């Protein structure tokens, strides 16, 4: 799996992401600068990592979404190429119009940095094939703006088309407002685009991939992606 990690000024999770990709795939990801206009040839997966691009000025992800490299990311997605956005990367993909909706300020008005439990809604996608539907995973979040909203028609469409892949849940997988840390609509933690090839999620699976740091529940996402490309080859 050849992956490319897009780096914007103010991004700070790109090394964690690159490490998780390398551990899962055995391939060194390309680090692509925001001012570049092309992705490396043969890129299978583009990852927009977390952080605080442009200091979250204007709106989270708004300025990064208009960076030169984003035309190449859009073209990659348009060809059906896989794109993964995590945390600020999710915000950037929404601002770029690659995913519907917006990530608003957490309803509790606080930056939240803790582990959460996510229920995997489907396992038949390239991003979640490493998990079972209904499985609960523990991964960290670290964000101030993760409260996913969209208009009612969009939410109905996302739900109807099975495009919600991750929801905040309790450790047993039940939906409970107390475990929906940021107040997201329908406890949505991660959504797919219409084509099923662009995923955005607020939590950080890349930070739970090594036993030395605790849980390894994030591995399934990366292992699933590697399997997806192996099978496609």
């Amino acid at each position, binding site marked *: 799996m050849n992956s490319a990690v897009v780096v914007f000024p103010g991004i700070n999770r790109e090394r964690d992401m690159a490490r998780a990709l390398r551990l899962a795939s055995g391939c060194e990801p390309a680090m692509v600068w925001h001012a570049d206009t092309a992705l490396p040839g043969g890129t299978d997966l583009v990852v927009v990592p977390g952080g605080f691009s442009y200091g979250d000025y*204007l709106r989270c992800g*708004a300025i990064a979404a*208009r960076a030169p490299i984003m035309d190449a990311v859009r073209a990659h997605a348009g060809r059906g190429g896989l794109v993964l956005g995590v945390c600020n990367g999710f915000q950037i993909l929404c*601002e770029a119009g690659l995913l519907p909706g917006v990530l608003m*300020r957490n*309803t509790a*008005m606080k930056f939240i940095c803790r582990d959460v439990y996510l229920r995997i809604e489907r396992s038949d996608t390239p991003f979640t094939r490493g998990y079972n539907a209904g499985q609960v995973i523990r991964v960290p979040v670290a964000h101030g703006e993760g409260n996913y*909203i*969209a208009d009612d028609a969009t939410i109905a469409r996302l739900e109807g088309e099975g495009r919600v892949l991750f929801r905040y849940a309790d450790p047993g997988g039940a939906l409970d407002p107390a475990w929906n840390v940021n107040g997201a609509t329908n406890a949505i933690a991660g959504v797919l685009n219409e084509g099923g090839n662009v995923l955005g999620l607020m939590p950080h699976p890349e930070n739970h991939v090594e036993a030395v740091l605790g849980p390894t529940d994030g591995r399934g996402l990366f292992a699933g992606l590697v399997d997806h490309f192996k099978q496609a080859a």
Partner: protein
Amino acid sequence: MKARVTVTLKSGILDPQGKAIEGALKSLGIAGVASVRQGKVFDIEIEGRDRKAAQAALEQAADKLLANSLIENYQVELK
């Protein structure tokens, strides 16, 4: 030419920052505050004197970057 673009949240969009400010105003004892919504103001200098072109450029700026049309409205004022 001086211009101002004002960006406000659409009605129905939850505004936790506005709510927090509203709470703070109430705790200051400022009378009669019913509700607060927070927005953004951009003061922009436009080159030249063509008002029609300036209006078009400002609307483009608001559509493309200053406002997110999913959650925000904007208003352009040329002075």
